[in-house]
Each structure stands twice: as C-alpha cells, then as structure tokens.
C-alpha cells in the first residue's frame, strides 16, 4: 500500500502534472468526438484488475500540455460515482469520507429541489441515471474523427473486463464554436492558477488550484479536506469531483418565443434573446456591445471577456440583471464593493468541459421542429459540489430573487415550473418578457469522482482489500 502523500506547504505546491487527469487542465477541444461510456460493475475482482491494468492509458495533464505534435490523438479520462465505489467494494467508512453531495448522488429528492430538477426535468423521468440506471464508472473517450472514436470505443469495450456498458453517450462537434441555440459559449472559463500556460489570463479568471484539485490550497487559503480510507490513506490527491448532466435544448421553442416577443422581426428576436443570454450570438458581451452584435469583438478572445458590471452597468440597462451570464458569473456586481464581490465570486467558480449532442439545427434561429433531439452534456469540475456547482445552480442561476429581483428567472436554463419572467431594464421603464417556457430540460446526470493517478492506485487497492 502506498504511503499517503507528505503534507507540503499548500500554497507553494506546484501542480503535479503527470498525476492529474488531463481534463482538469484542458477541454481536449482539438478532439471533437467524445464518447462517454457509463459502465456497471458485473464482476468486482475482474473489474478491479481491468481498471488497474488500464491506469497507464489514462491521459495526464502533462501529456496534453506537451507541444502539439506530441499530444496524444486519443485521450481517456476515468471517474467513479458513489454507487460505483460501493460496487467495487470500497468500505462504508471510506466512502463516508467523500463529499456528502457525492454520497447522496444527484437524484436525491432534496437535491432536486435545490437543482431545480422537477416537472419534465425530475429524476423519475431521466433517461440517464436516476433510479433507472447504474452509472457506476465513467470512461470518457476523446478522438479527432468519428472513425477513431468508434475504434477507441471498441478497444475500451474489450479492455474493461468485469464491467458492461450501461449507457453510451456520443457528442457531436460544435459548429463555429456555438452551442445549439446559436451562441458562442464557454467564453468565460477559469484556469488553475498553477497552470503555467495560462499565466496570461486576467487575474479574476486564474483561480486557486485547490478550488479544482485536492492537495492544493483553495481560495480560502486552506487545503480542502480530502477523502481517505479508514486507515488514513489519502485518496483525494490530484483528484476532483466531476458533475455530469445531460441537458436537452428546445431550440425551435426558444426561437419561436423570441420571434413572437420581437414582433416577428428577426433582428429584434435576436436582440431579445441576446438580452436573456447576456452575449450576442458571436460571443460579444452586451456590456461592451449594447446595441448590436459585434462579430469582431465576439471573436477577439483578448477582449470578449474583459468587462465588469458595477460601474458601467449597475442597473442592467445593457446586460439585464437576470441575464444568464450575469447570473453564472456576477463578476464585481455582488456584495458591497467590487473587491468584495470578486473575492466571493472566485470561491464559487467551476471549470466547464461541456460538449454537444444531437445534430446542429440546419438554419440559424429555427422556429420549426425538425424532429431531432439535441442538447448539451454539461460537464463541470469542482472540489466542493455544495459550495460551487450547487450554489451556482440554486443561488444564482435558478434563484428568482437573484440580485434583488422579485420574480425573474434565467430565461435560458431555468425551468418554467416556477413561472417567472425576465425584466429588461430600460427607459422610461422596464420591459418584461413573460410566459417563458422551459428551453432546457434535464435528461439525466450524476456526480463523479475523478481521481489522480496515484490515488487511483490506492483507491483500487482499498477496494480489493475488502474482499
């Protein structure tokens, strides 16, 4: 059994790149074809042996930070749900050292209230996870072509002896870096402060490593308490929690709503939808481009995310208080001062690693159903699910009282179950978009633990001990 890692001065510790799974540092976006294999344990001993043998094939951060010619053309990441750890034989005392959210799972009833998973989005209706499936082990396979992905899936299907594929979810490439509604997304993305290749990012987007990895100081200057065995062996080091949600996007419903609200004028429809998003389709933020889209700005990664709210747009005249991006990252707008707000926001951020599924709509702003289902695999990394992902979901995105509002919802991601409108501040007085239907439905999800490689060895050893 490996020794627990020595305690190091947390603030000074450098990222152990050859022990961290690559996804923590990079989205692998040059590999647009992803398969998420959700596996179930059928033979514990064989599964443990197969996972142990596969450890060397897991892609590390070091490999993906290599010069582009040497980066692997296929990549593999591995994570476990709480039921997966139980199925692999991890004892109850050790499992109890993982985060409570991870232990209860995403479909727990009180959690559904917090996450807003009700009505059409309720776990009873999920097609992925909930009580219907055992999504115990997650293997994410990344490839540069559809053929390479198929080969990778076949290879891993054979390699993972003792496990069977319960569900397979395949991504589709992004078109022009836009999600299905037609907006550039993922513009505002925090990076680990210890990532040597991200030192050029704005300070506000460089977040303490301990917000995303165990074994490093977090934004409070503390080492997050990590999972460990009853005997005190650390299992957290260089690992993190991965949130997986399958979201369906109702694209025709989205644009139909905004076309009607915009008096059947395509430009007005686009303006109103952009008000609700907080960015124009190109990615240009409304704070910087209040009146019309600015493609050049949208494409300019050096400027399309450089803005704040407090001084230039405190009342939301440009970017409404209820806009999606203002809720998801309020920047300097919360709290009594800008500095106070920025500190608070740094303690809530998540790293997003989302992908799309289903074919892209054939036209921009489609108003008619084309019989296809499509959406987003929401994938997020964070160290404290309650303080980061769930807080964002409950207190900012789904909260009708966000920023002092009375009954406003996030038009893009929130459910229509609780009603709500979106106020668009303006002169002489606000306009209110009412009667918004749900544009996104949750179709499934689960919480996973994505371990560091050495900790994975200790985890598998701890599982084998309890036979």
């Amino acid at each position, binding site marked *: 059994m490996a020794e627990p890692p020595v305690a190091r001065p947390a603030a000074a510790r450098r990222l152990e790149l050859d022990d961290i799974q690559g996804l923590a540092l990079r989205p692998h976006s040059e590999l647009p074809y992803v398969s998420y294999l959700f596996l179930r344990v059928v033979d514990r001993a064989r599964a443990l042996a197969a996972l142990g043998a596969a450890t060397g094939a897991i892609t590390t951060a070091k490999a993906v930070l290599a010069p582009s010619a040497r980066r692997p053309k296929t990549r593999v990441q591995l994570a476990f749900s709480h039921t997966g750890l139980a199925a692999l034989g991890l004892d109850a005392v050790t499992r*109890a050292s993982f985060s*409570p959210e991870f*232990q*209860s799972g995403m479909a*727990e*009833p*009180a*959690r559904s*209230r*917090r996450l807003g998973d009700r009505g059409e989005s309720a776990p009873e209706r999920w097609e992925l996870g909930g009580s219907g499936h055992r999504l115990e082990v997650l293997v994410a396979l990344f490839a540069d072509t559809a053929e390479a992905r198929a080969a990778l899936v076949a290879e891993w299907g054979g390699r993972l002896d003792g496990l069977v594929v319960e569900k397979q979810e395949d991504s589709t490439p992004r078109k022009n870096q836009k999600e299905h509604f037609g907006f550039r997304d993922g513009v505002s993305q925090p990076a680990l402060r210890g990532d040597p290749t991200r030192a050029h990012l704005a300070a506000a987007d460089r977040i303490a490593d301990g917000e995303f990895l165990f074994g490093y100081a977090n934004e*409070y200057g*503390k080492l*997050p*308490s990590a999972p460990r065995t009853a005997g005190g062996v650390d299992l957290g080091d260089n690992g993190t929690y991965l949130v997986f949600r399958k979201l369906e996007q109702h694209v025709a419903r989205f644009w139909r709503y905004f076309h009607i609200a915009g008096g059947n004028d395509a430009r007005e429809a686009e303006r109103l939808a952009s008000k609700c998003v907080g960015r124009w389709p190109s990615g240009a933020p409304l704070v910087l481009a209040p009146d019309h889209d600015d493609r050049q700005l949208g494409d300019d990664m050096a400027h399309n995310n450089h803005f704040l709210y407090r001084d230039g747009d405190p*009342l939301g005249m440009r970017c409404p208080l209820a806009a999606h991006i203002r809720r998801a990252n309020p920047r300097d707008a919360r*709290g*009594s001062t800008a500095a*106070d707000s920025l*500190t*608070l926001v740094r*303690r809530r951020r998540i790293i997003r690693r989302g992908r799309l599924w289903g074919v892209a709509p054939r036209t921009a702003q489609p108003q008619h159903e084309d019989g296809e289902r499509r959406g987003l695999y929401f994938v997020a990394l964070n160290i*404290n699910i*309650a*303080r980061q992902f*769930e*807080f964002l979901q*409950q*207190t900012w995105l789904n*909260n*009708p*009282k966000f920023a*002092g509002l*009375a*009954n406003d919802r996030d038009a893009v991601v929130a459910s229509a179950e609780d009603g709500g409108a979106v106020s668009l*501040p*303006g*002169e*002489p*007085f*606000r*306009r*209110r978009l*009412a009667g918004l239907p749900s544009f996104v439905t949750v179709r499934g999800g689960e919480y996973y633990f994505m371990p560091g490689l050495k900790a994975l060895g200790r985890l598998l050893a701890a599982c084998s001990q309890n036979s």
Partner: protein
Amino acid sequence: MSGPYALTIIAPIDGNRRASLDGALAEIAADLPNNRLVPFAALSTTHFARFVILPGRDGGADLLVFESNHDGEPDEYCDHLARVAGAGLDALFGCCIGWPPGGVADVDGYGEFMRAHRRSAAAFHMGYRGHTKASVLNDLAVWDAVEKWLDANEPDRAHWKSRSALELRTRIAGAVAAIDPSLSLRPAAPDHRAAVRWAAIIFLLVTIGPIYLLLAASLRLRELAYARSWRPEPTLPVADLDALRAIEDRRGVVQNQITHLAIMKNDWRHRLTARVGLWAVNQVSRFIMNEGQLGGILTIHFARWVTLDDGRLLFLSNYDGSWESYLGEFVDRAHVGLTGVWSNTDGFPPSRWIVADGATDEESFKSWTRNRQLSTQVWYSSYPKWSIDNILNAIAVREGLYAHFGEKECRAWLNRL
C-alpha cells in the same frame, strides 16, 4: 417606533407527555396557515415564528421553544396569542412542566407562565425595523399594483419616453389609488437613523474598545492552548445531513431557517466575552446596521441569540435563500462578529484575539454549524414569496410614490420597478 419585537418562550417538557407534544407539532406543521391549534394566518401581527424542541443538557428535560417576531409589546402580544392560538398553547405548553391546569383560560396563571419562561434575546436583528406586518403587506401590495400598471402600459413605453419621469410617476400614483383605495400611500415619516449612526459608532468604539483589549489579552493564552488541542470535527453523516436538508428549501418559500445550539466554554472569561460580543452585535444591529443588512448580509429577516439557563447558546435565524449561501456570507463577510460570539463555545474553529480566524476556516465552520443544527418542527413565514430585498424595495416604492422628488430622483424611483 422601534418594533418589531422578539419573544422567546423556553419551557421544560414533561417527558410523559412527549408523544402528545410531538403529535400536536406534527398537526400544526401539516397545515401551517389554517390548523386548528395555531392558525398562523390569523396571527396578524406575527412576521416569523417557530416551535422547536431542544434536547436537554446532561440528562435534563428537553425544552420546548417558541420564537416569534411580532408587532406590539410582549404582554399585549401574549393576550393576542391566547385569543387566536389558545388551543395550540394548551396543546403544546400543556405538555410542559408548570403550565397552569386551567390553561390559557386561567388568565393569571397563563400570564405568570409566559413571564416566567420568557427569555430576552442577548442579540436581536431585524431586517425592517419600524415596519409592522400590516405596513409591510400594504407596501408589497402597493408595489404589486405599480408593477401591474407598468405591465399593462408596456405598449405605451414610447409615449412615456417623451414625457418626464415626474409626470409618469404622478400618473402611476393616481392609477394605484384608483385600483385599490384601501391601500395606504402615505409618504415617508421623517427618520433620524442616520443622525444617530455616527454617535453610535463612536460610543461603541469608546465603550467596547478598552473592554475588548482586556478580554483579548486575557484570553490569548487560552486561545493558543485551544488551537493546539483542537481538531476539525467529522462532518455530519450523510443521512443526518440529508434529514436536515429535507426540511430546507421548501417549495414556494424563499426563506430558510436555522435552529442552532452550542455549548458555552466553561470559563468565566469566555462567558463574559460572549456577553460583551452579543451586546455589541445588538448595538450594531440597532443603531448602525439598522436598514436591512447586518455585517454585509442582506438576507436576514430576523435573527437572535438567546443564552439558556444551562449555559448553552441558542441561535435562531430566518433568512432568504439557501443554507450554503447564508453560511457563505457568514464566512465571506460576517466572520468577525460571528467569531467574536461563537469562539466562546465548544468546538469552534480556533480564533485569534477573539475575532480573527475562527469562521474564516470555511469547511470547519460549516461542519461545526451543521453538527449543532437542530431539526425545526414548526416554522412559519409571513412572506413566503418575498425576500428582504423585495420588502425593502416595496417600502421604498411606496415611500417614493408621493415623495418630493426631482426628475432625477424620479427616474431612480422608476428604476426600482
């Protein structure tokens, strides 16, 4: 006017009547507004209220706590309670030791029981000082009527854009008065809060300053010893945590509540420090941060600390939003005051000079809080749909309806809507 007021009744439970008490609490919880025992909808002056059972200390009797945040002096309020919720008081406090055999019908016995078991709050914070429940509800209705007028007149925004904000406000005021003549649209009463604020700050610095220095110096060695022996507490088992969470985030209610019970450290210096700290928090809430927020937190409707006779410190809070958000604000913004109070109780993350560190240890502080949180049996909010932001905004909207505003102030008023 200085209300609303805090009432806390704490009485030992007769162990033989526990089942009956549990049954009555469950009956009330099943239909908060209209149950036959304590029909909260009829308690027209109660903003927030709860009944909660505290475990006895060291084998002592369990305690039944009634918390209310209400308008009117306590004696007057107790009379009102007896009239509206007499059956409930008989059913609940009838399970406690010392309840008069005649119940609320025994006016003298009832009054004596309430006085004997009333505990004053060591610190009490209210989010809307000086506003009765009736005036809050009135102002929410005024605000709602204004919003409805704006909804209906949205198509005429272009027309109003060419007119002055003053003219628009006059039009709105006239329309609101016509919609519901029963609404009170009176302008703001003069307010002297700002004037006393600086005086209060100076007074507090002068009084608390020297006491703080003495206490901090006398406690420093104890703090160091405590920090050496202190270990983070294990987090609550997930089943217990999920049980607490099961009663949080109630559908259709924007507030949550906390009942929290900590044991005071057994040392006179800590007891004294806690008293001074609570007194200071109370003064700050009354005279300095008396317009909604406390310590940078603008989500607290009502909160109080009560020192129990058995040396424990009870904390009751009624706040907007999620537990994670509330506790996050404690850590991010209000850690100094909270550490000043709670560092005098067992298990709290180590402090420095009484007010530093402590609650800044985010994970440990949250575990410590959850480990001492109790399940609340009955909890009632009069404003399930309205956050404190909404209430303060509604008050400002009503006050601005006829205020002497210039064009610019009028525009700012319109931006509140």
